[in-house]
């Protein structure tokens, strides 16, 4: 007989990482799994919702079909639609905002972080969230199951899972399991963001003319040498909370030769982000009455990493497939955000899909090409550098997380053919 203590360490599905992809993977796996099945969600911080609460990302991109000639429609059914409705209710945001050819939904990092926790805990005892717990090793046993070392305040505990969903954003499980990890040359990596908030800001910052004037003044300040040119990637957006605004900046990583696998360089680039933010705040306070009474800036716990490592899946999703809107037999999620390239820290460059329609993401780009039972979602799916510039956004992470979680639960229940899993997921999400 299995002792209760051992029983508690056995899971059908283990999800690594509790960001936007991870929470959806865990909830979807838990809902999909047979009665009595157990799902573990491992999160290294005290937050769920990833780049929302950790990096102050304050909009959901990729939630709606990319067609602003029509009213907004959610691109992915199931959890993405549930989260969209919940966040609108909690923030009081009636409608998404049209931004050129796409819609974005404003949210609030704190509200979203709380919602992520509520959604996970609402699933009941069969979904076990392990917070402030880090996966430090994964091995695959001879019977095909996985053993994971989980480090927390109690020390190292071993847990076991029939399938694994890597939502670590960095394809950590690939490294542990000796599978291929794809990356991009550090000079082409999408530049990370540094987002901070200011409170007690005048209502006038909402005015479009003010934003144009700010854009002009920033360009002139950069040209006069008063501000560094990385300021040119900045945006100011009013929060759903009155009197608060968020400022997003791109970080220039060339000087410190940042790459996401170097934690010391990450600390260095974060320090630069804070310095740049303070410079911009002084500029805003000195120039504009709307910022005179503003509080000290609130800095995020982490920088907003946009790109690091990815898994090699059975299919590598590429930019052409997204732009042309290629059909796949095993489509389980839709990409709805244009390719948003940020290679130079001086602002985004958008490439839109050819037809004003969402593009398909096949299950094969969420399944390991090398190790059966390993799925992935979010920022570390099997995609090229260019395709990732579309699929990395939160709205799409919800969708890939949901699909990968469902597939992992099906695998744990003995259904291991990818095409059969895909058909089943398509039926459920219809």
């Amino acid at each position, binding site marked *: 007989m299995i002792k209760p203590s051992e029983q508690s360490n056995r899971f059908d599905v283990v999800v690594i990482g509790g960001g936007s992809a991870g929470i959806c993977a865990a909830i979807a796996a838990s809902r999909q799994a047979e009665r009595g099945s157990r799902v573990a969600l491992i999160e290294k911080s005290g937050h769920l919702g990833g780049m929302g609460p950790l990096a102050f990302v304050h909009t959901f991109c990729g939630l709606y079909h990319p067609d602003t000639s029509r009213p907004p429609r959610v691109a992915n059914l199931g959890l993405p639609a549930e989260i969209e409705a919940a966040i609108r209710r909690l923030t009081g945001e009636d409608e998404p905002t049209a931004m*050129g050819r796409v819609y974005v939904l404003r949210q609030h990092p704190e509200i979203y972080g709380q919602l992520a926790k509520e959604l996970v805990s609402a699933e009941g005892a069969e979904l076990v969230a392990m917070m402030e717990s880090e996966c430090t090793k994964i091995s695959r046993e001879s019977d095909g199951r996985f053993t994971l070392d989980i480090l927390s305040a109690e020390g190292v505990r071993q847990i076991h899972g029939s399938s694994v969903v890597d939502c670590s954003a960095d394809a950590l499980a690939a490294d542990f399991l000796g599978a291929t990890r794809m990356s991009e040359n550090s000079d082409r990596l999408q530049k990370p963001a540094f987002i901070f908030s200011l409170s007690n800001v005048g209502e006038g910052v909402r005015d*479009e003319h003010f934003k144009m*004037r700010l854009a002009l003044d920033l360009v002139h300040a950069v040209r006069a040498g008063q501000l560094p040119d990385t300021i040119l990637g900045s945006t100011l957006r009013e929060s759903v909370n009155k009197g608060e605004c968020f400022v997003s900046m791109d970080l220039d990583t060339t000087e410190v030769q940042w790459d996401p696998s170097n934690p010391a360089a990450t600390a260095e680039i974060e320090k630069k982000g804070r310095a740049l933010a303070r410079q911009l705040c002084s500029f805003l306070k000195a120039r504009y009455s709307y910022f005179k009474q503003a509080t000290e800036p609130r800095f995020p716990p982490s920088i907003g990493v946009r790109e690091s490592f990815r898994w090699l899946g059975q299919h590598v999703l590429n930019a052409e497939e997204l732009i042309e809107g290629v059909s796949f037999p095993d489509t389980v999620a839709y990409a709805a955000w244009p390719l948003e390239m940020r290679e130079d820290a001086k602002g985004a460059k958008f490439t839109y899909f050819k037809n004003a329609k969402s593009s398909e993401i096949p299950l094969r780009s969420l399944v390991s090409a090398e190790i059966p039972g390993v799925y992935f979602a979010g920022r570390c799916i099997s995609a090229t550098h260019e395709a990732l510039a579309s699929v990395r956004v939160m709205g799409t992470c919800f969708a890939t997380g949901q699909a990968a979680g469902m597939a992992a639960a099906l695998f744990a229940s003995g259904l291991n053919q990818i095409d059969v899993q895909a058909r089943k997921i398509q039926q459920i999400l219809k």
Partner: protein
Amino acid sequence: MTELSSTIKSLRSLISERLFQLNECFTEDCDLYAEGLDSMAMMQLILMLEQEMAVRIDPQDLAKENFQTLKAIAILVEKKRFS
């Protein structure tokens, strides 16, 4: 080619290269705001005009309609060059 149409051509290629890809059916009278020109892109656009087209944009130029279409921007650029 007139000055204006050559400026429109340069603007089209600069915007396509740096801000958002403009397809063949995007004419000189099409709405750039509908294509994604927001305050963030405006910063890149102003820099582009000042650096590549050697004009200085002033606060009084910041009317929304001056940046609405490729043609409107080209007219603004030509006017600034002339003055």
